């Protein structure tokens, strides 16, 4: 009885795990198939071909540019968000100043505002700044992620004992020295979480870049893929190969840092 129960229990888990992976595996296999084979159900391609990848890059000259755009935007975004979240989180968690509580509440509130409310006013602000159709225009789309990062860092730093700062003050460090020499090195785990969340958010972002960017050579990969889909409506092997450019890098990053990422999800908003 107990054995049958255990077996059933594992069967359910394996089925769910397979259901999670199946669409990716299926898309990956399709991307290696010859076009004539696209609709065959057997997942494994009869003959492995890199033709689709080659053709994506050959027939869509901007494709590589979109990948590089996304990469560049992601690197700048991560660097900026990480620095600002660490600074903001440090200030809110460890420095006493008038208005701190109110500012913390504003931060929490800003995480709950639907993006759609901000689309139009931010678009008009950008057009006044001349930032429409520039990479700078992507900045407003990041603020929600910035609030989450700042919140995470603040929660992490609050849990640290006060003694470390006292020791640092005795050693003659100012608040600014303390930030670089003490806080930044200490925040390793939470910094990793912020790094991957902001990388994912930037790499996967679609709606805001779609609104801001209109020259194809500036597109990030998700916006480019939408455009690409329109070009090859029925050539599924090509579309699957194209979508792999967007999927695989994330999976690599996730595979490397999944521990931090899962931990970050598990702790956001749950404690206190």
């Amino acid at each position, binding site marked *: 009885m107990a054995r049958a129960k255990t077996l059933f229990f594992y069967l359910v888990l394996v089925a769910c795990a397979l259901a999670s992976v199946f669409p990716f595996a299926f898309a990956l296999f399709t991307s290696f198939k010859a076009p004539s084979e696209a609709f065959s159900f057997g997942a494994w391609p009869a003959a492995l071909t890199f033709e689709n990848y080659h053709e994506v890059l050959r027939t869509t000259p901007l494709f590589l540019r979109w990948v590089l755009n996304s990469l560049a935007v992601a690197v700048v975004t991560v660097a900026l968000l990480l620095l600002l979240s660490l600074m903001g989180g440090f200030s809110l968690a460890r420095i006493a100043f008038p208005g701190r509580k109110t500012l913390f509440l504003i931060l929490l509130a800003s995480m709950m505002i639907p993006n759609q409310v901000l689309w139009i006013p931010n678009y008009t602000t950008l057009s006044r700044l001349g930032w429409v159709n520039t990479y700078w225009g992507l900045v407003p789309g990041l603020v929600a992620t910035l609030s989450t990062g700042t919140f995470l860092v603040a929660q992490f730093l609050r849990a640290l004992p006060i003694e470390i700062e006292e020791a640092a003050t005795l050693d003659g460090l100012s608040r600014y020295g303390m930030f670089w020499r003490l806080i930044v090195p200490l925040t390793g785990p939470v910094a990793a979480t912020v790094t991957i969340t902001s990388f*994912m958010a930037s790499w996967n972002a679609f*709606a805001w870049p779609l609104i801001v960017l209109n020259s194809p050579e500036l597109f990030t990969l998700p916006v480019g893929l939408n455009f690409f889909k329109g070009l090859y409506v029925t050539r599924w092997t090509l579309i699957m190969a194209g979508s792999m450019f967007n999927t695989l890098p994330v999976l690599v990053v996730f595979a490397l840092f*999944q521990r931090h990422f899962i931990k970050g999800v598990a702790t956001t908003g749950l404690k206190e």
Partner: protein
Amino acid sequence: MGGRQWGEAIAGYVFLLPYLVLLAVFVGWPIGYALWLSFHSYDLFSAPRWVGIENYRFLLNEPDFRIALRNTTLYTLVVVSCQTALALFLAVLMDRRIRGKDLFRVTLFLPSVTSSVAISLIFLFIFFKNGVLNQLLAILHLDRLLAWLGLSVPVDWLGDVHTALGAIMAQNVWSTAGFFMVVFLAGLQDIPEALYEAARLDGAGTWAQFRHVTLPLLKPTTFYVATVGLIGCFQVFDQVFIMTSGGPLKSTLTIAYLLYQEAFMNFNMGYACAIAFVLATLIFGCTMLQRRLLGD
């Protein structure tokens, strides 16, 4: 305040300043400006013209808005309940000694880190008339059941008014359940083992333990999951844009998609702002209601 305290306060503001500037310019000011615009007629090219509550009055009588509101509400209700239930179920399964726990966790979490655009393209292929879903259903002989239900087989999942919204719902549940499972797992780990022991001493079986210990103690976690899920669902946009463009026959038209259309295709900026505020009010109202129901 003494000199030292002043130094502290200044350092506090210096560290927070860049964040505050971004927040003020791209969140604070826009909310006010959007509210102001929602009482105006504005096409982005000529100056905004005051129209009072006209946009809101128009919206209440607009068939498209009603359709979008109905679709979005239905979508949110179904997806939030399914993803919460599935996530809780998976978390309870995983919250015991099992082999390969980490592998299962990573696998189930995988869909939630992937780009909505890539996922939408993949599901476009899966849901398509000659796609893998229909082939799979035919192998399992479930196509007869679908035909009996009155669908034309093979089903054009995203092209049929009866199934398009359901297909997007299923895709969303698939892609978020693993994320919320991790949140539930964290909640489960905070429940002291002693409570289960006490319940067992009182003769509680597995179901009774779940019902009287797990569920009540998971209330705050459930509130968090349901709220985050709800905020996400009400804003559904990417999948609709990529997979159906609101069709067929507006059966997948959602509030966010309608807003995008009005703002960036028809340039009815004021009207779109009014839509945005109705959406924000809905999200806020539902969150408050959930707080009441699941109260923490």
